[in-house]
């Protein structure tokens, strides 16, 4: 009985993929984003934080000082603030293709939050994955890709096997008998 290995995202050859706990995928972009016009793929952010606890101090500082400037600079993103008592602080980001990313920001400094927000804004909506190739092409072949019958004679369809012509051994150099024939022909022509 033959075991059929299903093509699942997580079962991959360790020679190809570094981290098998991440799915492997080819690099993708959201509908040629950036070739013509760039559209920010981040749709909305939700900041959930506590007004009193020490874990949320960084996020509270960020909201007081830098958040409004950041949201003005990125006007395409909707920002929601949700104060939640006695809960760890969290950022939830949603992207245009439907991806939802949850990230805990417990004990983050405001500077760290800025760095993370820049990352979350710049990424496309596709989930993090091991890239199998840094290049992805819509039309890899212009002439048509190779197939086993491309350079073969079409008479193969009509051959009766065994065929003496196609089964013959291909010599690099002429054989002794062929050399003799050549020599006799040369002598005939010279005469």
């Amino acid at each position, binding site marked *: 009985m033959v075991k059929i290995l299903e093509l699942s995202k*997580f079962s991959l050859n360790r*020679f190809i993929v570094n981290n*098998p706990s991440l799915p492997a995928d080819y690099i993708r972009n959201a509908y040629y984003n950036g070739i013509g016009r760039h559209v920010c793929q981040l749709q909305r952010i939700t900041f959930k934080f506590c007004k009193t606890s020490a874990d949320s101090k960084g996020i509270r500082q960020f909201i007081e000082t830098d958040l409004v400037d950041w949201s003005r600079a990125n006007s395409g993103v909707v920002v929601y603030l949700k104060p939640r008592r006695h809960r760890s602080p969290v950022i939830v980001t949603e992207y245009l293709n439907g991806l939802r990313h949850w990230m805990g920001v417990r004990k983050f400094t405001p500077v760290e939050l800025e760095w993370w927000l820049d990352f979350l804004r710049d990424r496309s909506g596709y989930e993090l994955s091991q890239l199998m190739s840094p290049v992805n092409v819509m039309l890899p072949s212009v*002439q048509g*890709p*190779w197939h086993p019958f*491309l*350079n073969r004679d079409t008479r193969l369809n009509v051959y009766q096997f065994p065929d003496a012509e196609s089964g013959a051994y291909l010599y*690099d*150099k002429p054989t002794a008998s062929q050399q003799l024939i050549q020599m006799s022909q040369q002598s005939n022509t010279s005469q």
Partner: protein
Amino acid sequence: MVFLSQICMKYTPIWLQKSGRRSVFFRRVSLFRLTGAFGGLSRNCWKIAIKKWTKSIQYKPKYRRMRTSMILDLYSQRVLGAVEEHGFKLELFLSSLTKCGLELDRKSLANIAVYEPKTFESLVNLAKTKFREEGDSEAAINLKPVDGVITRGML
């Protein structure tokens, strides 16, 4: 004074740091996130998972180095097959191309052979005429001439 243990503690992963206040669950789940693709108990049970993980991270740098040589091997295999199909040899093909001034590596040659087979055939024809023109060996003399290539010697 240098406190080496404090310095080393900065670089130990979370699953090896013993913090007394939090439960052991969080320390262990940070490793189970990485061993999710392992089989059976190796992904769920701590004692087995930590051993498998320490071994796998020893294998990773070795495999990263092997990967380049394996992929190059694959590309050379493909180019060999493509060249043999057109009745020529790999070493002669590569040496003739470098003499023509075409410094194409095996990766690009393999991609051309797979995705642009007619271009590859013309490259093989070019190499054959160059090899024939050199005329050093018996093989060069006995090689059949090929259509479609014009060299300076012919003009």
